[in-house]
């Protein structure tokens, strides 16, 4: 087995008496989609925040490409190749679709403090941006204002911006949220392709999507990972059925 | 410095702080509940003082003058809130700063137009004039002592109002979660008007109390406004407790700074240079205090995480 791309070891985070992250350990290997599921309030977003560096953990480590990145800031982790999408679209709404994509390419490539040459004439950045938009199917909307995009198109743009970062890993926080069945199906096809470019840690509520895509699933309940395994193992796991799937059935 | 002088200066600082609290309480509530930066708060302070001076001149009664200050300032507050301020909720801070700055201009010149350019007369009543003897042989102004007491009573009333009553509960709910108060079936626009009127009334009341020992003139609200902002920023915006602590801190820093800094510099400088350096530094002291607090605690002392 190859070394994992991303490792999370014994991560802990409390807010007062509440243990939001309770000794979490998981990893992400090349080429896989690792889904993280759990009921609302289980601590999924808190966990993502600690992996991306937005929130410092109380204890534990995050390893990325074989080195400990616990001390790095969000921006440094992003530059190291950690690309994420947000649960609620975090885009520059006044910019065009293309500008948002260029933003990603620029951020990853550096040279941000260059103040005199027009950025939208930079061929290399534009090429990366167009390629990413092409991949997610937004090429026709490149010159639209982002605020004018539909909800589904914004989710696609989130993925496109992540793509421009030439990422080593994707962290996706509920990319299907609010999408219709058609939109979900498109995105599923897209993610299925993307895993070969970089592995995906996928947080998702849409179980159909999870079961269709995931190579492995981890179940997070009250900050703890109660089970990790393949789709079939998780489906068969009584503790999971009890704690999570069971609830949903009820 | 002798002990009585120190105690007297501390009392002076507390008195100044209590007055600032009356201004700052409204400002912080208005920000906490409605998310509005109100530069026109100083104008309401001025309205209160002018209303009191006009009433005192007409009736000769200080109590009536105080009542008039609250009523007129609250009324002006309601007027401004329903006509203009209401449209600013949910706008960004920049719009709010500019619009309320415009209100400052309108209020100031409007008042000058009505009352003229000369200061008005407003004096404390005879039964609050003179001094009282306190322990340690401290002779202290009765009126200032009364201000401290009245201010503390108002502060206690406010804490009670916010902490123990139904309106207070709605106000606190409004600070935490605007959608929740809608869900509770509260009439939001009425609550907002009420909070604004409350803040305006307090500011007007402070204007009248202070007008009696300072001068009632156009522009009197400007410097107080900035101080009140310093107070709520130090205390943490939206927190009544923060406003109280911040007000006392600013009051004491300013008063004791004026006394102590020149003395401190006199230890190693020529007297004339020391007085002047000390005075310069004292005039900057509260801003230094504010910058220091914000650098250490970017959301103020009681401003949450």
């Amino acid at each position: 087995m190859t070394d994992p791309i991303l490792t999370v070891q014994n991560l802990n985070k409390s807010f007062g008496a509440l243990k939001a992250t309770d000794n979490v350990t998981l990893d992400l290997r090349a080429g896989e989609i690792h889904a993280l599921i759990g009921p609302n309030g289980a601590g999924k977003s808190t966990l993502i925040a600690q992996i991306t560096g937005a929130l410092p953990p109380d204890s534990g480590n995050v390893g990325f490409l074989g080195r400990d990145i616990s001390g790095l800031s969000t921006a440094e982790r992003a530059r190291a190749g950690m690309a994420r999408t947000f649960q609620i679209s975090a885009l520059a709404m006044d910019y065009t679709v293309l500008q948002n994509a260029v933003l990603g390419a620029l951020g990853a490539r550096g040279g941000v403090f260059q103040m005199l040459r027009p950025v939208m004439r930079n061929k290399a950045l534009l090429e990366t941006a167009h390629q990413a938009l092409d991949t997610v199917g937004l090429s026709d909307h490149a010159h639209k204002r982002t605020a004018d995009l539909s909800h589904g198109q914004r989710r696609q743009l989130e993925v496109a911006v992540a793509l421009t970062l030439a990422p080593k890993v994707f962290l996706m926080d509920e990319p299907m949220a609010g999408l219709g069945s058609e939109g979900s199906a498109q995105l599923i096809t897209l993610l299925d392709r993307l895993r070969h470019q970089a592995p995906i840690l996928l947080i998702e509520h849409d179980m159909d999507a999870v079961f269709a895509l995931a190579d492995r699933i981890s179940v997070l309940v009250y900050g703890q990972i109660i089970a990790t395994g393949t789709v079939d193992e998780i489906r068969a796991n009584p503790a999971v059925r009890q704690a999570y799937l069971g609830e949903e059935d009820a | 410095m002798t002990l009585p002088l120190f105690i007297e200066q501390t009392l002076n600082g507390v008195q100044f702080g209590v007055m600032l609290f009356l201004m700052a309480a409204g400002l912080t509530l208005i920000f906490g509940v409605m998310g509005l930066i109100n530069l026109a708060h100083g104008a309401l302070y001025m309205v209160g003082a002018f209303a009191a001076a006009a009433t005192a001149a007409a009736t000769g009664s200080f109590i009536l003058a105080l009542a008039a200050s609250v009523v007129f300032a609250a009324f002006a507050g309601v007027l401004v809130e329903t006509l203009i301020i209401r449209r600013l909720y949910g706008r960004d801070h920049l719009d709010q700063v500019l619009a309320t700055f415009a209100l400052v201009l309108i209020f100031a010149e409007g008042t000058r137009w009505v009352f003229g350019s000369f200061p008005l007369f407003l004096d404390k009543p005879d039964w609050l004039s003179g001094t009282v003897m306190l322990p340690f042989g401290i002779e202290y102004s009765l009126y200032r002592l009364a201000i401290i007491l009245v201010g503390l009573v108002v502060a206690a009333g406010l804490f009670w109002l916010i902490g123990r009553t139904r309106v207070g509960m709605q106000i606190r709910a409004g600070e935490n979660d605007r959608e929740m108060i809608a869900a509770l079936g509260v009439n939001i626009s009425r609550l907002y008007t009420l909070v604004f009127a409350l803040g305006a009334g307090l500011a007007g009341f402070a204007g009248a109390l202070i007008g009696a020992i300072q001068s009632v003139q156009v522009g009197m609200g400007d410097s107080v406004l900035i101080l009140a902002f310093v107070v709520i920023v130090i205390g943490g915006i939206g927190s009544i407790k923060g406003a109280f602590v911040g007000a006392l801190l600013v009051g004491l820093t300013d008063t004791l700074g004026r006394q102590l800094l020149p003395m401190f510099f006199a230890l190693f400088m020529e007297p004339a240079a020391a007085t002047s350096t000390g005075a310069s530094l004292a005039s900057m002291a509260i801003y230094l205090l504010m910058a220091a607090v914000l650098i250490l605690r970017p959301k103020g002392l009681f401003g949450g995480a």
Partner: protein
Amino acid sequence: MTIKSLITATAIGALGALALPTAHAQAEGLKVGMITTLSGGGAGLGIDVRDGFMLAVNQAGRSDLEVVIEDDQRKPDIAVQLADKMIQSEKVDVLTGIIWSNLAMAVVPAATAQGKFYLSPNAGPSQLAGRGCHQNYFNVAWQNDNLHEAAGAYANSAELKNSFILAPNYPAGKDALTGYKRFYEGALAGEVYTKLGQTDYAAEIAQIRASGADSVFFFLPGGMGISFLKQYADSGVDLPVVGPAFSFDQGILQAVGDAALGVKNTSQWNKDIDTAANAAFVASFQEAYGRLPSLYASQGFDTANLLISAMDKADVKDADAFRAALKAADFTSVRGAFAFGDNNHPIQDIYVREVIKEGDVYTNKIVATGLSNHADAYAADCKM
């Protein structure tokens, strides 16, 4: 220009006089630009100077004198802009009107350097009396230190031995304390600089109480003085208070009320100076504007009369002759004797006044003469 006509119209309307001939046609006339504070804080002083000045202008009824009035809002940069406008655009011959020393320092040096005359109806910063004096700059009020010096002299004659002195921490404040100390011979119980614009003086009053002083001298212009006096009266400290006239003048005394009664203050003018010119001034001012004239109004009135006296003698286009005519000061000042020293600053008597109540109105009466034929301390530095 609209503001000019409006203000002129108001002044005339108040006088009930016929339209003032606006002398655009007169080639030989004289044009005065008045830059003064008419809006915002301190507008009362500018309004008084303007009203006093216009009263004299209207009484003279000259068709060859045109006045342009503009509001400086008490902002130095606005004052500079207006001075440029008056010199470049209005082509005025004489400038006047500025109330505040800092505004005067911004305007006067440049104006006199461009060959214009400047007559100061109020501000008299020491720089312009000493090394920075100029032959075209005439001060018709006082050098800033004068009233403070008289207060110091009065303190000696009243046998005050241990004064506590305070003023705002800015140049005029420092000049004030320096001026007082220049003549005062007793000891100092304390010397305090307050913040400019400060409104609460509890801390300073506590220091006064603790200092063992036998008297208080203060210079706190405008609202600062009102606040101080009210709080002082309420503090139970009842040491005698001495100050320059600025905190006890007609415009603000009504706002201070009883707190000011009995306070001694120094001034080169009062409405009870017993001369025919003064009585006529007080009466006509009251008739025209419905209020008692203030010190500032008297200064505005004198400034206009000085100007008119020079116009009678010389044409402003002949700068040397006009300058000599101004320097002669051949007019009847409402304050009595008036002459210019070598540095074009007044040599005059400075009186001690006491605040009294006449009926319902607080006002002053002269109780002594503080300094006679007093000139300023900077004249020796002036090399014209």
